[in-house]
């Protein structure tokens, strides 16, 4: 595999409601910031790839309008995934592996405030048997939380600790939306949304955008003295039929761990795309991350921009490696109900 590095990452402050700012107006600042930080322009980028969801905007081909935020003259090579931008990063990685590009700009954007996120997300389900029932994202997550609690894989105390810690960690993330601290009584007195999940177990409705630049070994040092290397990347998906899945584990995640040779890596830090409080202790145990700092940024519980939060987990891992004495970082991105589709990214800082 060709060596590829992350050379830059920028995140828009996460907003509860971006109001009159449209998607293009959210994307431009992060792309410009990235270019300014690195002293480069779109001309230095071989491939541009974005991640977004037209249903969030409620307009067909809305992602094409998103391109208005990017300099497209002279013409550029670009692509889009109707997924979290973590997968736009994956596509860019492939493009570099194939020798079609040496550098790539990735951006993700999403406004959840204009629509009904519960209804919108239910449309990603199987269109024949599940979507017509309009199952909302919190209830689906609650199904998995219930399975995990009933099988003693996680405890209610771990969920509580996850919520308290996410808010405490939000101080590490200048772009976090939720920054107020809570204690046990705040948590226990919060109304259930979908048992066993209360409001605080769920991520906030968020608007925002993020951008990242990756580059081949040849180019990376032209952009920065401190590239963070993508040592491994793998993504796999569980069945789309919820009834045929074992929600208490994830065979596909285990397969990804084997693919990335997890046994032989000692991770120092991890950022997981865990949107609901039960998902963090579950993945920590599945991925053997009990003894290291996880979600130092606060994670999705303090700001969860749809189609961005996965890329943000990669970006926050990149930042953690760059700013601390860590060597190995793990980033996780997810998509679909109950952690259906997962990506693992092994990042390494060369000291």
């Amino acid at each position, binding site marked *: 595999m060709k060596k590829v590095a992350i050379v830059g990452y920028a995140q828009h402050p996460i907003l509860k409601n971006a109001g009159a700012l449209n998607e293009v*107006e959210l994307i431009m600042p992060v792309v410009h910031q990235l270019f300014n930080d690195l002293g480069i322009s779109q001309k230095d980028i071989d491939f541009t790839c974005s991640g977004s969801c037209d249903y969030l905007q409620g307009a067909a081909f809305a992602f094409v309008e998103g391109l*208005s935020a990017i300099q*497209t*003259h002279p013409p550029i090579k670009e692509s889009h995934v109707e997924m979290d931008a973590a997968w736009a990063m994956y596509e860019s990685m492939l493009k570099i592996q194939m020798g079609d590009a040496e550098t790539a700009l990735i951006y993700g954007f999403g406004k959840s405030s*204009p*629509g009904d996120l519960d209804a919108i997300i239910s*449309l990603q389900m199987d*269109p*024949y048997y599940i979507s*017509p029932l309009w199952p909302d994202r919190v209830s689906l997550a609650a199904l998995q939380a219930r399975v995990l609690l009933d099988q003693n894989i996680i405890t209610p105390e771990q969920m509580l600790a996850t919520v308290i810690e996410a808010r405490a960690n939000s101080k590490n993330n200048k772009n976090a939306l939720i920054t107020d601290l809570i204690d046990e009584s705040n948590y226990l007195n919060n109304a259930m949304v979908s048992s066993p999940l209360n409001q605080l177990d769920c991520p906030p409705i968020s608007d925002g955008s993020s951008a990242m630049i990756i580059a081949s070994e040849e180019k990376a040092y032209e952009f920065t003295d401190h590239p963070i290397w993508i040592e491994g990347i793998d993504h796999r998906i569980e069945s789309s039929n919820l009834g045929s899945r074992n929600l208490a584990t994830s065979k596909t995640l285990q397969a990804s761990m084997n693919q990335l040779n997890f046994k032989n890596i000692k991770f120092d830090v991890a950022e997981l795309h865990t949107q609901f409080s039960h998902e963090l202790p579950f993945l920590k145990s599945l991925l053997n991350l009990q003894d290291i700092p996880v979600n130092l940024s606060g994670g999705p519980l303090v700001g969860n921009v749809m189609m961005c939060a996965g890329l943000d987990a990669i970006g926050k891992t990149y930042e953690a490696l760059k700013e601390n004495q860590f060597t190995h970082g793990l980033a996780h991105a997810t998509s679909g109900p109950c952690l259906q589709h997962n990506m693992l990214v092994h990042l390494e800082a060369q000291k």
Partner: protein
Amino acid sequence: MSSEDTPKDYSESPINLEYFYTAGSATTRFLNQVKEGNIVGQACPKCKAVYVPPRGSCPRCGVATDIEVPLTDKGCIESFTVVHIPIPGNPIVPPYVCAMIRLDGSNISFLHLIQEVEIEEIRIGMRIQAVWKPKEEWTHSLENIKWFAPIDEPDVDVATLRFQES
């Protein structure tokens, strides 16, 4: 075969989603001016192209169009089509003409109606001007302009309107 056993090759699954749509801050500035009867485009600080209606960015350069450019309501027909098919709910009776309107001083065209002229006389390059609704009906919409109508000025060669990089 009972009705339950009849194979079904499709199922209906109606979807209705509601959104609180926002135009964007640049378009909002434009619409606030339209409410007052003014057409104010926005120019790209890099390539100087003038956009009307502005969408917030110059898609050539990928930067915000933060220079306000007051425009006239006069221009020419860059392209047009005669609509013969009635659209349900549309109060306009076919045949009628939809045209791409290029306002003087702008670098893109937008869609609007052409009226007060025989269809056969409408041509590319024809000079036209906005016909506004009464002031008391003005809202945040280009529908404040009822339609565009021809004015007595020589035709424009639209080939000369192509964007020239400065």
